[in-house]
């Protein structure tokens, strides 16, 4: 890519929309806002956005090897620490339901790779598979009753619709076409993986090794 192309993008997108999106607490990735994402990858736009955000004690933070952008605090005072701490608690409480959901989607669609940015999910197909397999529908019932999703429905249809609606609200999925039941995973999921990996590494949980030994035990 030449710098010319980037310059064009900068002109087209403008920093305003990006700043707004960041201040709304949204994650910018290739899936959610490709133009904005491209613009943030370009140094001059990024600096402009950064300068603006710095005036209100914000900064551009990135995750997932620089593929996802979000808004963080520039200086962390007492008040900011409180906010960050409450955000962290929120993320932690969401981890278990989200991981259960990720595993369910991976297993139900018979895929080798867990969902990551850009992967499509066809809701009707997924729903049919979950409905056909009692174990999957049990898992869905369990995870949809977590506070994060807060479903009180007893049938698969109601549960799955609510779960997906919540996931779109939380920014883990987007629905590019309102008419079609196709969802696309966003870069925020990659952020989630990074959070889990961070916890795994700092707390020395060695999750991968645990999974590995469990699989080997299953094989035996």
């Amino acid at each position, binding site marked *: 890519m030449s710098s010319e192309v980037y310059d064009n993008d900068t002109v087209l997108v403008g920093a305003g929309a990006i700043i707004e999106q960041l201040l709304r607490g949204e994650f910018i990735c290739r899936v959610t806002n490709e133009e904005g994402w491209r613009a943030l990858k370009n140094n001059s736009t990024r600096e402009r956005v950064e300068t603006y955000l710095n005036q*209100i004690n914000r900064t551009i933070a990135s995750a997932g090897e620089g593929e996802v952008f979000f808004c963080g605090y520039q200086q962390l005072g007492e008040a900011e620490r409180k*906010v*960050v701490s409450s955000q962290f608690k929120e993320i932690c409480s969401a981890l278990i339901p989200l991981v259960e959901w990720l*595993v369910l989607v991976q297993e139900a669609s018979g895929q080798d790779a867990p969902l990551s940015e850009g992967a499509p999910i066809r809701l009707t197909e997924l729903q049919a598979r979950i409905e056909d397999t009692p174990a999957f529908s049990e898992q869905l019932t369990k995870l949809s009753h977590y506070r994060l999703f807060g479903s009180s429905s007893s049938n698969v249809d109601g549960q799955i619709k609510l779960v997906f609606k919540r996931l779109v609200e939380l920014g883990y999925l987007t629905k590019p076409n309102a008419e079609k039941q196709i969802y696309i995973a966003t870069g925020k999921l990659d952020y989630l*993986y990074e959070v*889990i990996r961070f916890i795994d590494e700092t707390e020395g949980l060695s*999750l991968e090794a645990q999974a*590995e030994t469990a699989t080997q035990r299953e094989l035996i």
Partner: protein
Amino acid sequence: MSSNLHQAGVKLLKQLGRHADVIMDAYLAGSVSESSHDPAVIEKLKKSGLLWRPEPDQALRLKRSVRALLEEGLSDERNRQIDSNVGSALATIKTLADHYKEARYNVDYSAAEAYLADLSEHVYSFTDSLRYSIRVLWGRINNEFGYVGTVNAKIRENELAQSQVTELLNGLEMFQFSELGEIAGDIRELRRLLMTSLQDTLSYCTQELSVVQGRLLELLGRFRQIQGRTRLLKGWLLHTDLHPDYQPENHVAHNKIPALFNYAEAILKPAHVDISNPHHEFELLQMVAQIKAISRDERIVVPRDTHVTFEMSEAEDFDIPDNPLKVAVDEYFCAIIDSGLRQSALEYLQQQQLDWDSESWLYQVIGGYEALPMEHKQYFELEPIGKPHPVYTGNFIVTDVELWLA
């Protein structure tokens, strides 16, 4: 001898063609079930060495060479056989080059020629097999080892491909061009084969292989990442199952908060109307007043004009007025018939003092002639008068046409 070989080869190929479905069955299934095919056919194929039995109680299989032919011909992606035995190819090439030199030294030209042909064959087939190997590798990379299902299998396939690349590269290192140069000496044919052609191919292949290696490593990294994530999720579930009251430590309590968790609160909320704010009342009312009410229920139905009577009546006669130019041309044709003389179209035009443009007149005359029915046309002869273009040959500029009775 050579005609015998030719005949035997043709026979073998015909056999392949005749029993193509048996061979394809064997190719696709891996082995032939002897009960489902004619025993005589199986026996024949066995005799000509197309099928073989690896162990006494095993089913018949295709010979490797036939398999390789099909794999290459069909560009079958499952093909992962790579011939990395560069050493033996190199030895053969050196030996043949020595034979050739000896024959030349003994002034035995026919032998020398045969050895040279043999040598070229070996060099070319060696370079071809190298290029083929690279093609196979690229094929596997490009569909990301799509022929195996799981990520683990893909990782193993990737490792196999990497070991093949390493082996190929090691093999290529064995080529010492200084040594080949010594063998070739100052013999032009040998230098061309061993130095120019081989060197080109080898440098191309080495470059290509290093790119392949890079891509393989990149893919491996991706596969590992996928695998890692799957394990991470599984491990997380296992861990939380084993320790139901597990809570992640408070990683943001430290003095230095990890950048990952420095996630600011949203300060822009989705816009919405605040109807309880009395200051906005005036503006809101104005906006409401501007909303256009679209009510589809009260749409005025326009009655359709269904009372127009429709009558069947006879179609009126109409005629197309004759084109005066066409009439004039017809008169010209009649004048020719009357006079029975040759007359050019432009002459007639001047004679009758008609005020048609000469070019459109000529076109109409030619058109009129062409439009005549066959039986009338044969009474006339039309000849263009003109001259060839002064510069561009093949172009004939018509200045006039001449018409007469045939």
